[in-house]
């Protein structure tokens, strides 16, 4: 087990970013960089992170960084991954650096899924991190394929009528060597999963729930608390998938082992503003029930991979 004492002191995410208060992406970048270190090439898919890194000629990220077009996370990683192979062959680089893609849910679930899927199928050697704030936050909070049922966005003014998709399961279906979900409320779990991804060859997909204070309408100081409640209510499940098996981790594991009681989804819906409309409407109870059902279905589907928890 790693402890906070083991985290490197060096900061590759520098002071002076233009992120909002309580931004989950910037905290996650800091953690990810500590796990991966300096020998990393970073590709940022068009998202809040393209903006929060600072604008020309300044940058708050002390890694070689290319901002890439919205639909091109997987493809851009493919180009870099092939190029570093060629550079190692040429003797220009001693070894291949980590290739890290950093994308939001819009760039992953929606416009970027083809490119990500292609790169995964080609067994491209890179780490793909999706920081999922369940909406297009950068353009001012529109719905995405990751927006949960019932959530308000500017394009779902009455609450979203459809369920979110489960893209981590889509990535598992690509037979890639490592898929994991993480939460900022469980930073050592996150850190360890990044360390593991660094050591594995092939495509690694890591997805973090990224509660967005302005988008989800909660005070910025509550970002970690909302992250924690997402896990405690089952609305965000922590696990990793490796060698054909899924293992639950951190608080999700403790809940499923019966050591901690799962909180009702309602507790999670009530500590943020984006479910206010649906909760106060006649459909409120129905939406809540449907989300509880979504959680139990997701758990059952994941348990299908892990006989020991059945």
């Amino acid at each position, binding site marked *: 087990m790693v402890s906070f004492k083991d985290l490197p002191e060096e900061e590759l995410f520098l002071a002076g970013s233009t992120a909002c208060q309580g931004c989950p992406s910037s905290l996650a970048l800091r953690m990810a960089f500590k796990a991966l270190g300096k020998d*990393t090439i970073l590709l940022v898919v068009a998202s809040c992170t393209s903006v929060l890194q600072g604008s020309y000629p300044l940058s708050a990220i002390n890694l070689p960084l290319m901002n890439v077009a919205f639909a091109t996370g997987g493809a*851009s990683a*493919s180009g*870099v991954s092939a190029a570093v192979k*060629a550079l190692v062959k040429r003797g220009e680089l001693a070894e291949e650096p980590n290739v890290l893609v950093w994308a939001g849910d819009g760039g992953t679930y929606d416009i970027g899924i083809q490119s990500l899927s292609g790169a995964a199928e080609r067994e491209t050697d890179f780490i793909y991190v999706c920081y999922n704030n369940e909406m297009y936050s950068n353009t001012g909070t529109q719905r995405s394929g990751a927006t949960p049922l019932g959530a308000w966005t500017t394009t779902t003014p009455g609450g979203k009528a459809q369920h979110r998709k489960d893209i981590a399961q889509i990535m598992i279906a690509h037979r890639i060597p490592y898929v994991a979900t993480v939460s900022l409320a469980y930073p050592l779990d996150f850190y360890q999963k990044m360390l593991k991804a660094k050591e594995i060859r092939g495509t690694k997909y890591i997805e973090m729930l990224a509660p967005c204070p302005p988008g989800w309408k909660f005070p910025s100081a509550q970002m970690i608390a909302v992250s924690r409640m997402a896990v405690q209510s089952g609305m965000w499940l922590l696990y990793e998938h490796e060698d054909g098996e899924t293992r639950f981790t951190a608080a999700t594991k403790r809940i499923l082992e019966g050591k901690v009681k799962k909180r009702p989804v309602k507790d999670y819906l009530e500590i943020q503003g984006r479910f206010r409309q649906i909760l106060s409407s006649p459909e409120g109870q129905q939406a809540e029930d449907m989300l509880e059902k979504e959680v139990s279905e997701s758990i059952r589907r994941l348990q299908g991979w892990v006989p020991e928890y059945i």
Partner: protein
Amino acid sequence: MRVLESGNHLIALAANVAGVEVVPAYPITPQTQVIEMIADLIAEGKMDAEYIPVESEHSACAALVSASLTGVRAFSATSAHGLAYMHEMLHYAAGIRVPVVMVNVNRALGPGWNIWCDHQDSISQRDTGWLQVYVASHQEAVDTVIQAYRITEDHRVLMPLMLNMDAFVLSHTYMDADVPGREEVEAYLPPYRPLWKLDPRLPMTHGSVVYPVDFSETRQSMQIGQDNARQVVYEAADEFMRAFGRRHGDMVDGYKLEDAEHLIVAMGSLAAESRVAVDEMRAAGRAVGLLRVRFFRPFPIDELRSLCSGRSGLMVIDRDFSYGMEGALFSEVKAALYGHADVPSTNLIVGLGGRDVTYEQIREAADRAFRGEADEVTWGDSHITKAHEITREMLAEFDKLLSP
């Protein structure tokens, strides 16, 4: 080494001797043979490159850009809808200033679906920032691939280059051509030395947000790169001539220009066809010459001004059309000459969607044009007839039947 190969295969062989290191590509007719041959050369151990079989052209161009920015020589090939699908990434390549080379085998854009040659695909990408060159022979295609990297990788340029080659007329016909050896080419074209790249030893941020206060400078610097290419194109051609004893590489290619009163202006293989028309018209006593535009971007402004000045007339052939206006080359030529050389000009639109264009057609159209009998824009081989109108009338009848 002399080989008997198709235009597509020659492109692949040229990319190999040019020392290409990464090739992201997606199949599309009529380009597919280029990437098939590259895949074969790599599989047989004859080419030392990474092949990325991407899942779309948008991804092909994205990987092309990111591979180049990582510091390697990157190459791809596409056509028509593939090029159109890359449109966003074409801007990206130019904006982030990567010296990549891509061959576009010119093909019509559908619908109606059509795999045959015209220039609509590349003309539609005119304003993306890519250098655009149009070749007219197999040997020129080989030599231009090699020179292309000299031009784009020159630190004064650093703009991507699109080599355009006519579908089927060049891509699928077999010709004898010389493909120089890898070592000879390396002496002419040393390994790529990037001015900037993604490198953990020198972390830099590329493609970040640029506010209005800095944006115009980034755009003007792209134009400076394009402008510098005018000079670099000639340098690359001169040195190529010294190294290989052949000259393919100027901004324009003239034929029987000296005493010509009238000029045919064209690009690609239609220009080669026009040579025969010029010979025939010369034999009939008419002082006609041919000006083949090789580089469409940067546009050969100075060359056109000096070579067209004082002529009695131009006939510009377009294998493309800018809807609501006229042929794109026609517009560009007139724009270059405006205020510098007042030459009456007409436009001939022919060969769209691969319709065969013969030298006789060109000769007849030029005869009419140079006698002053041609309209400003002539659809030279289109025959809209009463049948097209009847079809419309029939459809209108159907519409009545379907209306409640």
